[in-house]
């Protein structure tokens, strides 16, 4: 198999579409990485569920830490000018009210209908929903960011999710370490493909039938 994309490249592919002024929510896990790859010259407002808007980058050392400015996952971040603190209810008024332009969420499974399953941790008695149901349902655009297959090689892009759903018909785009796919009218459309990969190789790792348009491109960050 050809080489898969690095996490940093995946993050760049996702972050390409952050427009200047976009309000962006990044889920725990892979999506958080995107914060470091906002394209040059664009100003993006980050939203964090527990009541934080417009924070800066992750703190790198003790001198940078303000114990009151954390994002989800116990990670201290820098304050930024214009940053705002909120309550949980106001934070989700922003989400549910459609004020988030893009949310990037990790996924365990995404299917051809755009259904998202990212709740269930295998081997655990209970899964976490967090803020994902609201974000996936109500953000103007939902991007699923995940490895193309599980550690065991099982496809995560599937015809029909078998795991408990977080939200239905919510995913607009999937970015993996192998491809960029859009969910359109109940189908998975292959938009971009990692360098060196063939459509057949991607299809072999995918549980849903891929629609291959004429303008399929190689993933490029130029």
């Amino acid at each position, binding site marked *: 198999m050809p080489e898969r994309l690095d996490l940093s490249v995946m993050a760049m592919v996702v972050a390409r579409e952050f427009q200047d002024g976009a309000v962006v929510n990044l889920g725990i896990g892979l999506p958080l990485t995107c914060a470091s790859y906002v394209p040059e010259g664009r100003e993006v407002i980050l939203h964090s569920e*527990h009541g934080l808007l417009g924070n800066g980058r992750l703190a790198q050392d003790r001198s940078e830490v303000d114990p009151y400015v*954390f994002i989800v996952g116990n990670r201290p971040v820098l304050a930024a000018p214009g940053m705002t603190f909120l309550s949980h209810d106001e934070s989700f008024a922003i989400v549910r009210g459609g004020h988030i332009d893009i949310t990037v969420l990790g996924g365990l499974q995404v299917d051809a209908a755009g259904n998202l399953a990212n709740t269930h941790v295998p081997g655990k008695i209970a899964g976490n929903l967090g803020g994902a149901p609201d974000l996936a349902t109500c953000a103007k655009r939902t991007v699923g960011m995940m490895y193309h297959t599980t550690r065991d090689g099982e496809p995560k892009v599937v015809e029909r999710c078998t795991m408990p*759903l977080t939200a*239905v018909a919510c995913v607009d785009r999937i970015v993996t370490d192998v491809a960029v796919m859009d969910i359109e009218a109940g189908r998975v459309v292959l938009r971009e493909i990692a360098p060196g990969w063939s459509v057949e190789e991607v299809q072999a790792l995918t549980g849903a039938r891929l629609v291959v348009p004429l303008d399929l491109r190689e993933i490029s960050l130029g």
Partner: protein
Amino acid sequence: MINKVVATFDEAVADIPSGAMIHCGGFASPFNMPSYLIAALARQGASGLTFASTSAGTGVEIAARLRAQMAPLVDWPLDYWDLGLLADLGRMRKLITSFPAGTGRETVWPFERALERGEVELELIGQGSLAERIRAAKAGIAAFYTPVGPGTATAEGKEVRDFGGVPHVMETALPADFALVRAYRADRLGNLVFRGPRTFNQTMAGAARVTIAEVEEVVPLGELGPEAIHTPGVYVQRVVVRPSTPIPSWDTPC
């Protein structure tokens, strides 16, 4: 004269009965958890409690691990306790939450173990609906329709109704007997100012019959300022001040 300041944490939680329904604030940082209220409730001994909280909590052991992990960046407080403590002590009957489990297979929270033992009940709900249900209780709204949940387990047993061609789930208000919240500053009227993301601490203040706020300090009336107050005192029944020197064991009266 109004004075909502209570002398000790033990006094603040003394009347919480077994079987009570309790809101507990804090999330995503050890510095916004009402840790001393949780510890006092653990000492007090009430059991069969139902909690609503963002997360089930790490408990004492995993907090110690996080303390070590975080050490290069920040001094994780020695006086940090969360609902994991009460799950470990067997005081929980039910938890309404969005985060019942540690992330990663190797991080098993006390609540997960209690759930495996069949000792507790879990009501899993997304953070947004949980926050809005608690806000509804505070604001006197009996129920509301949210577009979040249709087609998922969250909607099971609930009314689903179309608005503008979009299915919505009816969620009901989630009031509590007591709310345990943490703020930064307070005055004797119970006015609160928070520092940092306000999480469920602000959402829950006022959604319970009795809201108890754990704060860094109580300042003279007027010092907070009318534009700066985040939670008005009408939502708060009791205020109690954190010790200036951390008390590193949860079972020490304070």
